[in-house]
């Protein structure tokens, strides 16, 4: 702000007053916002207003500060920029609008990421080298199981979700009540992972054979005279039982994107193939699938990233017991249960490194699609 004043020093009186006025107003606005934030931080601020009204007033203030405050801030800073010479103003202005977002990303994303990486090398047990967290990570049998499981998840879940989603998209394309059919597949996507896990927890529930089965699947099995299976408590069914939940959740997403992609394939193309004598299957595999290759890759990689970070399902259903551990859960346990920050950060970095290549593929693919379009 002082810079703005200096730059404007030699200009005529009237404009100088304009600068001064804008500076005063800016300081006032910033002061008001600061004051508002202080009030928000004070837990006692609204206590005299009663429990409900106090909370409502606080929420209102937060809303006003968040929306009107930011709006006012942009306007006053912009008014200051206007006093700069035209070229300088053009240079500075975009940054005024981008800077808050950049600052937020830097503070909440970049800084913690860098700190996490540093910590994974520095928060080592006494006498350990800088790599000791990583050495421990790869030698600890529990972590080895976690990594192995993540690989199993990665091999099964995205592929299955894409295949089923694609099949559904292609088939639903031809039925009468397409949107209704698709809604059923799509609905799970609206359910949180924890919610889905709780639902499936009941699907898989096991009760002593011969007594009333609470779980749907075991209820059916027992009805037909079978022995109920403890899906979540038997190695290795438990891991696969949880992968099914992830597939169930992600099929809807795959279907929606792929269905849109299929609708984007020009009818002339498939018509031409048919005229040339291609069978329905040939048409599907040799014409349709290659035409929507980009979308398939996007869906696959997006689901792959979700799967790599899988946490909620395992945390809710088995807690990582009986060889169901996954890397993200291991990270959580190291952090919040064992208070082993070095281990936790090392796990975070490993997970991050595993996600990066998939991200690259994803971004590249998106970019290519963007260029093609």
């Amino acid at each position, binding site marked *: 702000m002082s810079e703005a004043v200096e730059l404007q020093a030699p200009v005529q009186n009237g404009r100088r007053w304009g600068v001064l006025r804008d500076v005063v*107003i800016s300081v006032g606005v910033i002061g008001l916002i600061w004051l508002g934030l202080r009030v928000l931080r004070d837990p006692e601020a*609204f206590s005299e207003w009663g429990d409900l009204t106090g909370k409502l007033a606080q929420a209102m203030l937060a809303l006003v500060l968040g929306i009107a405050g930011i709006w006012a801030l942009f306007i006053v800073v912009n008014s200051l920029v206007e006093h700069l010479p035209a070229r300088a103003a053009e240079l500075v202005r975009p940054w005024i609008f981008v800077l808050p977002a950049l600052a937020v990303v830097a503070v909440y994303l970049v800084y913690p990421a860098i700190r996490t990486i540093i910590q994974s090398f520095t928060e080592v*047990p006494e*006498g350990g080298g800088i790599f000791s967290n990583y050495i421990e990570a790869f030698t600890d049998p529990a972590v080895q199981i976690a990594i192995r499981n993540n690989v199993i998840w990665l091999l099964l879940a995205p592929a299955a979700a894409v295949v089923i989603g694609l099949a559904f998209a292609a088939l639903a394309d031809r039925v009468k009540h397409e949107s209704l059919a698709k809604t059923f597949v799509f609905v799970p996507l609206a359910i949180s992972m924890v919610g889905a896990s709780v639902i499936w927890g009941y699907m898989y529930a096991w009760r002593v054979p011969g007594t009333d089965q609470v779980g749907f699947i075991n209820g059916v099995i027992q009805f037909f005279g079978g022995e109920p299976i403890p899906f979540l*408590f038997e190695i290795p069914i438990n891991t696969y039982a949880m992968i099914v939940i992830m597939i169930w959740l992600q099929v809807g997403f795959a279907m929606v994107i792929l269905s849109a992609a299929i609708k984007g394939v020009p009818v002339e193309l498939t018509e031409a193939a048919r005229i040339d004598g291609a069978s329905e299957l040939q048409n599907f595999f040799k014409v349709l699938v290659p035409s929507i290759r980009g979308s398939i890759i996007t869906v696959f990689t997006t689901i792959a990233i979700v799967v790599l970070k899988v946490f909620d399902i395992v945390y809710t259903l088995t807690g*990582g017991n009986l060889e169901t551990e996954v890397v993200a859960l291991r990270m959580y346990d190291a952090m919040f249960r064992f208070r082993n920050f070095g281990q936790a950060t090392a796990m975070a970095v490993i997970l991050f490194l595993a996600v990066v290549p998939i991200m690259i593929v994803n971004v590249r693919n998106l970019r290519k699609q963007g260029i093609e379009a």
Partner: protein
Amino acid sequence: MKKHRWSIALVALALLLAACGDTGGETTTTGGDEEPTTTAGEEPTTTAGAPAGETPYTELNAAIAGDYEGTSVEIVAQWAPDGAEATSFDLALQPFRDATGIEVNFEPTVEYETALQVRVDGGNAPDLAQIAQPGKMQQYADAGSLINLSEWFNVDQLTQDQVAGFVELGSHNGDLYGVYYKTDVKSIVWYPIQGFADNGYEPPTTWEEMIALSDQIVADGNGNPWCISIESEAADGWVATDWMEDILLRTAPPEIYTQWYNHEIPFNDPEVLEAAEYMSQIWFTPDYAYGGNTYINATFIGNTQDPMFDPAGPQCWMQKQAAWIPGFWGENKDFTDPADWPNKPGEDVGFFYFPTIEEEFGQPVLGGGDMFVMFNDRPEVRALLEYLATAESSAAWIERGGFVSPNVNVPLDSYTTYPETELSTMVANATTFGFDASDLMPADVGAGTFWSGMVEWVAANGEGTEEIFQSIEDSWPAG
């Protein structure tokens, strides 16, 4: 034109802020950082209340003499605000307030452990704080946050007054940092009273009797003798660790137990494997545990004993669990008020002491408790801590129920509520008080591999004991 628009917005914003700011300012000046006075110190005209006369504690005597009148002490605890425990504790503090004229501000806190840590880190520690985990006390002591009590506290008196084991639990590196105030007992086994009477079963007093009773129940075709399960959200397995600990206290001297959680002997020491052997006798003998090993792993701990309340009569007969479990019995789950429970503890379901195994190790009790630690050293704070070590300080809470004191001077007939009537006797007769060892181990083991190892052991139906205990030993963090 443009400027006009934003100046209007600005005025509106300013008005709003001014309106809100008003109240904000007011409370900051009156409330602010000063702790609000929750209890007005009453005029100590008379020394009414329990701790009259001479006590074995210097500062407490001085306080009763009125030396610290008008001062104030802040004490915090995790007992939920407005809950029965917080009310009981506040009442238990009242005799001290009345006798000394010291203002005691008790603040029950939510998110207690984090809140305490934040205050200590921020240099704003309360004078006295309740702590349930000895490990937490050790952390604070190592960080230099705690006042070393050994320098002035009458430790001899405390050792004499409390059940063996509590002074050690409150100590770290040979110095006393925490004074135990409240205990919880885990070494009890619940059984259906009517069902036992109908079948002529007697609560067993030795391990052999317990095994004989189990065989009897199986032979009578009365279902399975034991209700056991360990599924507990993100903490599966802790029930099994309690069993291990309770048995180890009965098959090995207390030193072994201490060495075990301090890792001075391997986790899979032969003594520990022997205890595991005893445990598997109950857990994995065919027909002993209801539903077998899958039931143990797959059933939530609050549902463990549901078959005991089967309308067709008990399908399982004995459940080892602490005194919080009655709220989960059968239909009891549907009621919040214990008065409405269809299955009443003491009337419908009673408990017996988890029996002795080897007589030479006496009658150990496994459990937990709450201690108070001191962050600020002032005479009136010392006086309150000393008060909490006396038998008088628990009288009000005992009367209201839900409290067992570690102090042997508390008259047993002052307990009138069930199950404290029996638990207090158990604590008073205890030859050793063993604190939950898994809570004393590093969390990687005590809340990690020990739990998950037990789950694996159950899944394997008791096979591969040595490998599993070896893998827990291997997981012990270095250093």
